[in-house]
């Protein structure tokens, strides 16, 4: 494997020949959402240079490059000078790195539009990559995938599930990188990555708000500084097929256990079944909402955990809100179910209950009432996703970068044409409870593995309350439920150093 990685990393470049004239002359694609009444100007770019662009042995380079755009100097400014220049405007350059895309954003008041355009364009087209800043950012990335990851067992679980679902695949490492690869990254590697990946064909820029024609023309002129070269090929392969159920326990010093489970899902926003599954997951486990079946069963009825949610596509939360972040659309997706930390004594029961709920969802589908309620809910919820022009622009960029319809308009339209049968059929076609990779992160890993794989009964322990008769009967069934994880498909590993 190491030899293969070295061969790929060190392979000589094949001269691609001269750049076609049409490519060399083509400008960067720019999306406009002008609103003369807006006091703000939003500048955004998405670049097809996310962490799936990292070559083996250089995992973390895409993120280090992206973070260096805004922290390691640009144009005439050092990193500190750029921050000082923007400071009076209240504006901050923001970077988000996901598997496929890097997002660069700057929002400012139109009083400072020219300054912000200069800062944004300099970061995108003329980064300096000052070595001391790159070294500092590299150290921060190393912390993020080592002790930083161990401080947040929920983030660790989410990354572990993706690493396992995409083992040996360009999506198979956290965007921050691998601890074994990050130390070898340096300023020169960053500069080479930028030179190869940040070309006009790989970049889509958006501008929204109260800008004038002069600013718009200036943006076009600045973007010509990017090389007119073809976008590099982005390697993609199928996710590893998941067969049956398997378990990975990552042991930490924590007293609780969190779960992430799922399987690859060969479906994106172009697929006719996407809207059906989106609605189904709203019924089953709407993110950070209390109306999902999982939430009702695990938290409301039994107090097992703070929450439990499910997703039909990769999901990144936007800051502290419950809404989805933009810039996280991907070429390949996966289904996932998240159980927030559970006390160790009840961890096995909670996992059994969540999987039982999933099996019921697929076997029996949604009721007519659930279907109607979810459709009404989503009709009202989708407009809340983009309450300002900047967020609408981010959805426009997502659509353009991924070759999918504009989610804000497309989902409501598709919902109107859906039937309950469509949703239940999509669940049966795409969600497979019998083929799950299950990641547990928490303390007492070996004992947890035994409870999940070998113990015949793992009853729930209630704290000072007694369930009603019907719930007690179901609890008894769940306690003896066989998760069907073969012993040789269940392993325990130390969480420390797991992303080496």
């Amino acid at each position, binding site marked *: 494997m190491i030899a293969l990685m070295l061969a790929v990393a060190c392979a000589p470049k094949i001269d691609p020949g001269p750049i076609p004239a049409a490519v060399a002359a083509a400008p960067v694609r720019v999306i406009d959402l002008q609103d003369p009444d807006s*006091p*703000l100007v939003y500048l955004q770019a998405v670049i097809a240079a996310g962490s799936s662009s990292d070559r083996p042995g250089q995992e973390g380079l895409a993120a280090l490059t992206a973070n260096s755009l805004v922290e390691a100097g640009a144009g005439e400014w050092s*990193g*500190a000078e750029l*921050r*000082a220049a923007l*400071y*009076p*405007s*209240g*504006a*901050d350059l923001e970077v988000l790195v996901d598997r496929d895309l890097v997002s660069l954003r700057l*929002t*400012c*008041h139109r*009083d*400072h539009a020219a300054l912000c355009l200069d800062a944004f364009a300099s970061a995108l087209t003329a980064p300096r990559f000052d070595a001391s*800043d790159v070294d*500092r950012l590299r*150290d*921060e990335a190393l*912390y993020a995938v*080592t*002790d*930083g990851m*161990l*401080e947040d067992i929920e983030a660790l679980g989410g990354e572990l599930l993706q690493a396992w679902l995409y083992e040996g695949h360009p999506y198979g490492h956290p965007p921050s990188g691998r601890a074994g690869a990050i130390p070898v990254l340096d300023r020169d590697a960053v500069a080479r990555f930028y030179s190869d990946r940040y070309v006009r064909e790989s970049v889509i820029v958006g501008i929204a708000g109260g800008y004038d024609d002069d600013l718009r023309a200036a943006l076009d002129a600045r973007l010509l500084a990017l090389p007119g070269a073809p976008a590099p090929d982005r390697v993609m392969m199928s996710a590893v097929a998941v067969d049956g159920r398997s378990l990975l326990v990552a042991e*930490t*010093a*924590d007293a609780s256990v969190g779960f992430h489970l799922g399987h690859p899902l060969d479906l994106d926003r172009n697929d006719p079944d996407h809207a059906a599954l989106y609605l189904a997951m709203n019924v089953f486990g709407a993110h950070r909402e209390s109306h999902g079946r999982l939430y009702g069963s695990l938290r409301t009825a039994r107090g097992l955990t703070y929450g439990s949610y499910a997703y039909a596509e990769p999901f990144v939360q936007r800051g502290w809100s419950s809404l989805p972040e933009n810039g996280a659309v991907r070429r390949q997706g996966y289904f996932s179910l998240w159980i927030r930390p559970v006390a160790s004594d009840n961890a096995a029961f909670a996992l059994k209950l969540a999987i039982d709920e999933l099996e019921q969802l697929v076997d029996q589908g949604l009721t007519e009432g659930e279907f109607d309620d979810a459709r009404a809910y989503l009709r009202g919820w989708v407009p809340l996703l983009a*309450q*300002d*022009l*900047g*967020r609408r622009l981010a959805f426009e960029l997502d659509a353009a970068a991924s070759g999918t319809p504009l989610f804000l308009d497309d989902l409501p339209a598709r919902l109107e044409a859906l039937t309950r049968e469509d949703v239940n059929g999509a669940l049966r076609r795409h969600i497979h409870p019998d083929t799950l990779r299950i990641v547990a992160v928490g303390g007492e890993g070996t004992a947890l593995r035994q409870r999940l794989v070998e113990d015949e009964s793992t009853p729930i322990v209630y704290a000072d309350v007694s369930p009603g008769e019907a719930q007690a009967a179901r609890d008894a069934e769940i306690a003896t439920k066989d998760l069907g994880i073969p012993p040789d498909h269940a392993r325990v590993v130390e969480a*420390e150093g797991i992303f080496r």
Partner: protein
Amino acid sequence: MAVPWPGAAAARLTLAWRIPPHDPDDPDVAALQLVEELLLSDVGPLKRRLVDEEGLVYEVWGGRDSFVAGALFTVSTMLRDPSHLDRVEQIIGEEVEALHTAVDAGRLDRARTHARYDALLELDAPAPTATALGWAARRGGVDALDRFQATVDAVTPQALADAVGRHLVDEHLVHATLIPTEDAP
């Protein structure tokens, strides 16, 4: 206060001073809002010295609470190495001490401008605008936003130094550390 912490984690140091509760018309509250800008912004001396120059911490953050029933002014750091605790505390102390002397008027104006535009940029959608109005309503009425801005605009370099001398002093200081250790409970 020292908290031993089990497992892997970066050590934390937080210094917290008791300060007056939020009042849109209180000049000291407005001055402390500007102290937050001067000390803890991306261009402030703590980020420059602790993160950029000496590489002692991953992050430094904090500022003034705007609670109405008692408040804190905090400076928190996430250390790269617990052995640097004393040096980090020394630098924070030096930068707070420096604010006991009147700052350059131009620097104060930049901080004021940043605070104003930072607040304006938050008001680009109904939800954050409603939050801001709700915040103001609990703090003296909807016009509390404008009144507080006027109080901030009136802060002079000497008034800021005087407010620091009254509030960011040892008698009001609480010191907390979180240190990862194998022996933690």
